[in-house]
């Protein structure tokens, strides 16, 4: 078979692309995933609320609503297979006066139509018992027990790692810049920004050199390019939709406040967003946000003073004890909005081209269901799906030193002394875990942070950054001056005495 010739090429290594890749890896196909950034999950999938929504707050006839409910079920199964931590914490949509009750009941009805299980209206007495820090002003809430939390980037990394194990090829630093029709297939022109890898790892980068261009040919192409799905679609000649970023600013609180709430707390949703929430995250830090603001620049990930005060105000309305001094980190994410719903369809104009675009919230939750739908569309377009006799659905989970009991820690350290070398003091991450993360594909400081939590604690890398840079230097064999926060241009060290 020709090199760079594939059955399916997936553009975009976020939760959507990674889910599709893993789903397709069950079949006897040659699959490639192309991602423009130096690591996976550096697009929308790295900055969101991490909620596996139950399916409430969606119009009952919407595609996103249906895929969300289904995705919630599937995520549990996949998380189990991959060893990703999924916690079912439940959510409360709270109301402050009787005028709001009809809307709450409407949400309940709509969600039940979509098939969201276990919903009930809970009263003040229930709330006193189950959510003691909730504002006294709250009179009732809709309780949705199936809401969960997950680490969004870890889900992407683990899906991708498993897909690679099942034969998918992933090329990082590969940006699709042209799509043309050829007899029987599509040709992708790709600009390469990352050089060849010094060592073969889980996610192998291309054999092509930085600064060059190369070509991939594939019978089918799936566009899962997130914020840039409109531009990628336009490359193929389909330009009937535009993606408008909707910014959301989020603020993380110190892990000491882990038990601030027992559930994820929502106000009544507005037309464009679910409102300012008090969120639980899989790493323990509570989070407050997100804002919702239409913007033009797809690269604008800045946070603002205004966003901060809106979020604090919104969050304190529900949990009055929240204190701005507990904020240890913040970020902004951009929802890729193309109208009111997801756009998942075959493009008749360009046979073999499938758009998976406008994957706004709840795109993280819906991803596994989106993947099934994409596979279904590929089948309808003529892709033959023959199951592999062996699909390796399990993944050897990553070790986290202090996730378990002390007795286990002791065993780990005995087995491998490098577990006894603490790198990150706030999150208690060992050198071994950092090395593992690099061996599993981390190439940047952010990539290590997302995988291990090192640098994500209250001191923000003050202690561990140097240690991590030294380990990267050793493992990757690159000079200190080439170590980056998140890819080319984000170098951390400008000069070295040598």
């Amino acid at each position, binding site marked *: 078979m020709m090199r760079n010739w594939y059955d399916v090429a997936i553009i975009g290594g976020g939760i959507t692309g990674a889910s599709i890749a893993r789903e397709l890896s069950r079949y006897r196909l040659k699959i490639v995933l192309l991602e423009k950034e130096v690591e996976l999950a550096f697009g929308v999938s790295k900055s969101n609320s991490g909620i596996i929504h139950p399916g409430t707050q969606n119009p009952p006839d919407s595609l996103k609503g249906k895929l969300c409910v289904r995705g919630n079920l599937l995520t549990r199964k996949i998380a189990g297979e991959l060893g990703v931590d999924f916690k079912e914490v439940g959510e409360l949509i709270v109301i402050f006066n009787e005028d709001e009750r009809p809307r709450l009941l409407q949400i309940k009805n709509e969600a039940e139509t979509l098939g969201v299980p276990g919903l009930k209206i809970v009263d003040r007495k229930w709330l006193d018992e189950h959510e003691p820090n909730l504002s006294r002003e709250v009179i009732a809430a809709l309780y949705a027990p199936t809401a969960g939390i997950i680490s969004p980037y870890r889900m992407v990394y683990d899906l991708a790692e498993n897909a690679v194990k099942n034969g998918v090829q992933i090329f990082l630093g590969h940006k699709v810049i042209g799509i043309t029709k050829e007899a029987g297939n599509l040709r992708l022109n790709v600009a390469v920004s990352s050089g060849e890898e010094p060592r073969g790892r889980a996610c192998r980068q291309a054999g092509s050199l930085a600064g060059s261009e190369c070509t991939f040919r594939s019978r089918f192409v799936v566009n899962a390019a997130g914020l840039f799905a409109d531009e990628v679609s336009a490359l193929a000649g389909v330009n009937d939709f535009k993606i408008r970023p909707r910014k959301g600013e989020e603020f993380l609180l110190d892990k000491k406040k882990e038990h601030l709430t027992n559930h994820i707390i929502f106000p009544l949703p507005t037309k464009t967003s679910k409102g300012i929430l008090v969120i639980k995250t899989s790493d323990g830090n509570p989070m407050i946000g997100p804002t919702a603001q239409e913007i033009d620049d797809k690269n604008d990930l800045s*946070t603002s003073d205004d966003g901060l005060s809106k979020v604090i105000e919104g969050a304190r309305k529900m949990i009055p004890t929240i204190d701005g*001094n507990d904020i240890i980190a*913040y970020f902004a994410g951009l929802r890729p909005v193309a109208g009111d719903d997801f756009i998942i369809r075959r493009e008749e104009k360009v046979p073999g081209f499938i758009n998976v675009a406008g994957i706004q919230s709840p795109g993280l939750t819906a991803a596994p269901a989106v993947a099934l739908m994409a596979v279904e569309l590929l089948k309808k377009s003529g892709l033959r799906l023959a199951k592999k006799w062996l699909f390796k659905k399990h993944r050897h989970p990553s070790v986290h030193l202090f996730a378990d009991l002390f007795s286990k820690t002791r065993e780990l350290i005995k087995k491998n002394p490098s577990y*006894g070398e603490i790198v990150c003091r706030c999150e208690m991450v060992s050198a071994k875990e950092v090395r593992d993360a690099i061996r599993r594909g981390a190439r940047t400081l952010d990539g290590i942070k997302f995988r291990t939590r090192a640098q994500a604690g209250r*001191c923000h890398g003050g*202690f561990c950054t140097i240690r991590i840079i030294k380990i990267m230097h050793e493992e990757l064999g690159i000079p200190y001056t080439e170590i980056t926060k998140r890819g080319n241009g984000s170098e951390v060290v400008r000069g070295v005495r040598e």
Partner: protein
Amino acid sequence: MENRNNVKERELVVVGGGPAGMAAALSAYENGVRDILLIERDQYLGGILNQCIHPGFGLRYFRENLTGPEYADRFIKKISAVPSIEISLKSYAVNLTAGRYLAYIKPGKMEEVKAKAIIMATGCRERTREMVHIAGTRPAGIYPAGLAQKMINLEGWLPGREVVIVGSGDIGLIMARRFTLEGAKVKAVIEIQKTSRGLIRNVVQCLEDFGIPLYFSHKISRIHGRDRVEKVEVVEVDDSFNEKPQTRFEITCDTVLMSVGLIPENELIELAGVAIDKKTNTPVSAEVNKTSVPGIFVCGNSFKIYDLVDGVTYDSAKAGKMAAEYLKGLK
């Protein structure tokens, strides 16, 4: 913690081998304690002093103008000569209980000790950009000043070439001079208060000597740059720290150093149930070095933030004495 039966018992355990821990251990010894374990997570004793290569230490205690490493060296020599003080390096304390069971990790093993008395001398960490809520992007090039100090002085790395420093605390001032001497351009120090938080001598010898402008009553309102810092927005503030929008201006730079204060590191004693003041992260205490749990003492920068190391040494010696007296009282 299970397996309590094979846990070693120790009279006194000191956590942290900076000037505080060393002074406390030495004074406990001088006051009669003969079984002392000092654990330090780093490969060397000396704590933060190892990266403070500038002079200005020991003017009171030694009546000499020493650099940080020189000040540390005197205590390292002294403590290494005392056989009753066992020093365990590369040893990271990870858990402490109210019953004074302490777990620590060193390459290859996890150890547990039961201490009759404990002195915590774990120092402090730096406040970050996130804690002062500066708006804007989150590119590479934003460093706590102490981290930058460590990069330059211990690793020989230059973190940036055009630098703006937020906060006029001593660390920020010292780093302004250090960056300048290393060939970088320090474009400004921005201080939100009306006066410097650092010593005047440092304003003179670290800024004025090199013509580095210091803006009082100004703050950085926004950081720009997608991958690496590109510029900052600076704005004057009024007496209640409200921005005066018409005064806004920009400074191009590739680095922002944060020198906006230190926070005592007390997460371990918090685990042990010691009462902690949430605002300052210091132990709630009526008397220097004491905590709400008998037999657990805290000294140095983890008790409160000291400007000068001499004060750390004097007070930490008291902690050693207190622990010695506490141990005598048990007998």
